């Protein structure tokens, strides 16, 4: 009776470990995709900070005193988040960070669309202002938000065997 219970616990534990491994693979794959997107977007903006500052100005949200600070701080932040998404111990913080910033990006884009602005969001380098591109980029933000939230929730330890 006791032996059966012990064997049952062993099977349950093995199943949970197997599940946690498959969860790890899914989270790793999505993290690598997110990391590639954020590193690419960050490097592109680091190379042209002035164009990115002009893109932020076009949103007509921030006062002039904050525009260059954001234009200088956000691109390295995206690159750092991308790098932190690759490592397992740092993935959770990076995923929370990308979740928060994608919400901010979406809010800014949605506000510009609602105000009837036509602009180049500067999300992936500078280009021609276009409303159709703004809609596409807002959609991409939703996808990135979903992926970030998925990685964050998957990175939270679920059982005592996963606790660090």
């Amino acid at each position, binding site marked *: 009776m006791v032996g059966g219970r012990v064997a049952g616990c062993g099977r349950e534990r093995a199943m949970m470990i197997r599940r946690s491994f498959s969860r790890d693979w899914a989270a790793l794959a999505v993290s690598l995709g997110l990391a590639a997107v954020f590193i690419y977007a960050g490097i592109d903006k*680091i190379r*042209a*900070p*002035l*164009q990115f*500052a*002009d893109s*932020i*100005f076009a949103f*007509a*949200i*921030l*006062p*002039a*005193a*904050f*525009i*260059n*600070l954001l*234009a*200088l*701080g*956000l*691109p*390295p*932040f995206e*690159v*750092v*988040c991308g790098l*932190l998404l690759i490592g397992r111990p740092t993935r*959770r*913080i*990076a995923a*929370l*960070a990308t979740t*928060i910033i994608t*919400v*901010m990006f979406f*809010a*800014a884009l949605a*506000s510009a669309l609602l105000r009837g602005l*036509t602009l180049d969001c500067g999300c992936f380098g500078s280009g*021609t*202002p*276009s409303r159709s591109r703004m809609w596409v980029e807002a959609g991409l933000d939703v996808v990135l938000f979903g992926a970030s939230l998925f990685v964050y929730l998957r990175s*939270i330890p679920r059982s005592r065997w996963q606790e660090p």
Partner: protein
Amino acid sequence: MYSLRAATLIGVGLAPTMLVALAGAITLARAPRAQRGASRLLRDLVGFALVALASLAVGLMLNRNSSRPLPMVYQTPEQRFDAELTAVIDAPPFKVAPAATVGLGEFRSAVDNKDTLILDARPSAFFQRGHVPGALNLARDEFAHDYRDLSPRLKAFADKQIIVYCSGGECHDSRLVANALLSLGFGNVRIFTGGWDAWSAAGLPAAAGSAP
């Protein structure tokens, strides 16, 4: 206007953080077992803030070592251009009537006849990727530098037609450069509003690299 902007800024910047903090507080209040989760979320938010501060420090350092650092307070393209133009003519820009515009057909015949000076007002990186054949790069964001370089060739066209273009759509570079040239005494300056977008969309020939 600024209060509206400030309200939007607060909404965009603080709302997500407040939502996460609220979710954390609710989780904490709901069950004592969730305290561990709430403290984890708090740790993650602290980590987020530290990463953000470190990234800002890196960005400021990169800017300090850059060949063209950004000033701490943002200047609009018009303000930067006024400064560039002032560097050329050593006086504030004059106010002139806006330059006339041309359509794709007229622009194309001017390019084919080679009797018009075609100027590309986009940044040099865009010019090098692709431009109208025969065009010279008088970039709006490098106006003083490019104007000095092109000065002999521009002076040869002082009484002839000059057409300026930029990306197209709502780009302002061609308008600013055209008006600056009118201010500098060039009599016949016009703008091709369709710009590079209309030219390339029509499948017309393109050149790449620096101008000869």
